[in-house]
């Protein structure tokens, strides 16, 4: 009898353990957003400690504006775009803390893009999840959850599986991404993108307004104002000096001037705290940017614009703050050189695509990188073409192609997939169910 009881007790324990194992396995498998944002954030936390000299913080204007590989090759400085699509202003404080904890960088570059968002956008769950859900479990993450998320919803952030488990239905993609993540951790080969994302498209012709002397201001929306103030107070309070702010370049038409007015207000506010701000809108001429050649929409440069901005920034601005970079290990140097090789291959492909197709709408995402590394980029291009035709028919958006229309006030660019957990338009951040 007692043997029988023991047998049942063992089985109950085993069932409970198996259940826990299933939860862990499904979490590992399913917590994905199927986007470059996911990898950009996850890989940042996998970098060697204190190996990045410059951390660029912001939204899409950051990862389409700076190419860390190009910068590495030409200026010998390691940098990382710690940026996610449509990132609200409130993420910046948490990202600064993460950068300080893991890299203690020589310079942090913070974009003011989030300052022009309205309240709904500033508190949007989907955009917040792009950062929060890809951070490792840590005190920093818990702080952010408590600060941003209403108490009743916190459980869905603490237990990511609640939100993402049904991604298992996309089993192949889940397996690919989980394997990629596993391999990245195991082989320490995760620097392949360093946050860069490029675009092989050109912008449509628009009536551009000259804003070189446009200084009109507009009140920031409540949440954005609060978040910017909070960030500045934090930086001031912690005496963090290695920070500069930027307003990345855009080409404005009349409809977009409201955004510019908000940016002017934000710039004034940042200056009042004693921090340097670089308004790239006013440096468009100096950088040599051409709207129809260097941009793929109003707020986002393509691969050509990305190189021009990176070049200008690292030749004229960064040297003022980073006098000399750290000592890099041989292994790190080798890794960055490999990354540059991948980048040049991508650049060549994107250049070819732009010349052949003009407004292609293709992005330099993690998928493109994988294909370049595997030598299957031609196959990928064919697949993109086919998908592009389907998209044109159905009018849907996908990971690899986004409407090249102006993103106007939103100023954002995302490579989110409509079905993914990262879909900012899905309130729950989950599937369409």
């Amino acid at each position, binding site marked *: 009898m007692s043997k029988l009881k023991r047998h049942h007790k063992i089985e*109950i324990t085993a*069932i409970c353990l198996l259940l826990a194992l299933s939860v862990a396995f499904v979490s590992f498998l399913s917590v994905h957003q199927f986007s470059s944002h996911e990898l950009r954030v996850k890989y940042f936390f996998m970098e060697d400690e204190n190996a990045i000299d410059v951390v660029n913080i912001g939204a899409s204007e950051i990862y389409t504006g700076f190419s860390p590989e190009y910068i590495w090759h030409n200026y010998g400085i390691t940098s990382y775009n710690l940026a996610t699509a449509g990132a609200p202003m409130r993420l910046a404080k948490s990202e600064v803390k993460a950068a300080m904890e893991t890299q203690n960088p020589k310079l942090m570059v913070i974009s003011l893009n989030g300052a022009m968002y309205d309240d709904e956008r500033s508190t949007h769950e989907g955009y917040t999840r792009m950062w929060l859900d890809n951070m490792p479990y840590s005190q920093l993450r818990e702080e952010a959850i408590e600060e941003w998320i209403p108490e009743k919803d916190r459980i869905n952030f603490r237990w990511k599986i609640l939100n993402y488990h049904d991604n298992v239905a996309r089993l192949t993609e889940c397996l690919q991404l989980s394997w990629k993540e596993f391999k990245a951790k195991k082989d320490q080969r995760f620097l392949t993108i360093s946050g860069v994302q490029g675009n092989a498209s050109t912008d449509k012709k628009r009536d551009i307004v000259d804003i070189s002397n446009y200084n009109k201001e507009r009140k920031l929306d409540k949440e954005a104002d609060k978040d910017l103030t909070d960030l500045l107070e934090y930086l001031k309070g912690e005496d963090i000096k290695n920070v500069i702010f930027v307003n990345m370049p855009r080409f404005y038409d009349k409809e977009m001037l409201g955004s510019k007015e908000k940016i002017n207000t934000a710039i004034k506010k940042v200056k009042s705290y004693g921090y340097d701000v670089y308004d790239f809108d006013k440096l468009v001429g100096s950088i040599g940017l051409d709207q129809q050649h260097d941009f793929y929409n109003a707020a986002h440069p393509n691969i050509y614009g990305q190189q021009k901005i990176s070049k200008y920034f690292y030749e004229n601005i960064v040297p003022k703050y980073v006098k000399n970079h750290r000592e890099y290990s041989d292994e790190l140097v080798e890794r960055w050189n490999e990354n540059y090789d991948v980048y040049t291959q991508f650049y060549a492909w994107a250049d070819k695509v732009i010349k052949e197709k003009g407004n292609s709408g293709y992005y330099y995402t993690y998928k493109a990188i994988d294909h370049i590394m595997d030598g299957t980029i031609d196959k990928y291009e064919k697949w993109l073409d086919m998908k592009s035709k389907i998209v044109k028919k159905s009018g849907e958006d996908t990971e690899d192609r986004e409407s090249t229309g102006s993103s106007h006030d939103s100023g954002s660019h995302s490579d989110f997939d409509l079905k993914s957990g990262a879909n900012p338009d899905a309130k729950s951040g989950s599937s*369409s169910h």
Partner: protein
Amino acid sequence: MTFNTLTFIGFFVAVLVLYYLVPKRFQWVFLLMSSYFFYLYAGPKFVIFMLITTVTSWYGALMIDKNHVRESEVLKENKEIFTKEIKKDFKAREKQKRKRILITILVVNFGILFFLKYLNFFTENLNHIISPLTDGGQIPRLNLILPLGISFYTFQTMSYVIDVYWKKVRAERNIAKVALFVSFFPQILQGPIGRFGDLAPQLYQERKADAQQIKYGIQLMIWGYFKKLVIADRVAIAANHMFGDGGYDQMSGSVVALCVFLYAIQDYTDFSGCIDIARGAAQCMGINMAENFKRPYFSRTLPEFWRRWHMTLGTWMKDYVFYPFSLSGRVRNMSKWIKEHSKEPKEGKIGLGKHLGGTLPIALGNILVFFLVGVWHGSAWNYIIWGLYYGVLIAISGLLKPVFEGMNRALHINVKSKPWQLWQIIRTFWFTCVACIIFRADTMTDAWNIFAKSMHFWQLPQNYVQEYLSMGLVVADAFVIPASILILFVADVMQEHMFVRGWLERRSFILRYAIYFIGFLFIVGLGIYGPGFDQSQFVYMGF
């Protein structure tokens, strides 16, 4: 705190551990506290109605029981003194007193149920009638919220009072124990509707943890979660699209028929899944609750279907409505009258008149029962029509039984053959699918349109992909839904022939744990749960 939330799982684990840790004599008190906590968590204001039911049924049952005792004592003491007539008279007077108490309790409790559940339905219909007479004047609609599980606990508690009245059980003197019987948390949401004689002694019993019971309980809960999260909530997506907002308009006949089928699956897996979770949770605490489902879609006739579907409501109706009605004096007299006035049948044959005399009380009883089953489900005409649909069909099948049997004989149908039995199962399932349409459709016009369209089931979609997506499903569902329904089917077939959990126990270690693991992966990975899912509400919680 529905069963498919982490809060419930955390709550249940805590209750289970503490239940076996508290001193045994306080176990039932702890269960009572846990049950009230569970109920109060849903909203403190609802508890007042449950308290009224508890107090009135406890006091009423006690009064009835005391009267029974007093009557026996008086009869015993005056055995020699009372004449037969005095004895009869005394008994009739005492019965009258008990009846008054019973009726008061029933009126109060069913009155609360009627007030909260049916008043607005009643006034709406009354407004339709009186509107022309009152120049458009209307009786105002009250803003009433239905307390959680009120239909279930009211029926369960009233069965206790009636059983005491019928001397089937003795009244419980301790009000707290009655309170536990009324509020026991696993069953408060959706039943099963327990009987005092079966359930109460188990609730109050002192017990040690029994590993086998806990294991079986956990297994049953896992199976319930599989049915609810993987099947019910997934197929609900398609069913909701079809039934909601005239979605069927855009669908071809075959897709509408498919959605009706999926809704029938949803209805079964949602309700039976919840019951499995409830029964499993109770079993972990050593309490065996009544079975409520016995593979109903394998039924060969509608009466059999109702002996396998929502069994505790069925037996409640049978015991407290059907028999009292069918065996009542007036109905018996009517039956007798028909029999007396029908022709003598030819030798060796059953006369239709005689048959009618025997089956008419049953037929009328069935119509009444199913009318009430419809009313029990909710305050809307579609529920009443749904109930009557079953009642009339079952009544007709009973009344015309000789005709059908004659047809079978004439057509030389072997009613014991497997193909005939399979046909009967399919036929019964089709009737239940039609009932599902009535039950679920927003209006009777919708119900008719859906029915008509589903009858064109051979009409294939013009654009398969578009129609598939119009059901709101994603690509993966095309694999997950059939696979999970197949698992359900296999498990149900096995359950027809064996005790599956016992069978599982006899399997090899590897096979057993592989089954567990696959089951967990299905539930955790493919279950519909988490933020933003309306389907998480259990269908029968609304009743």
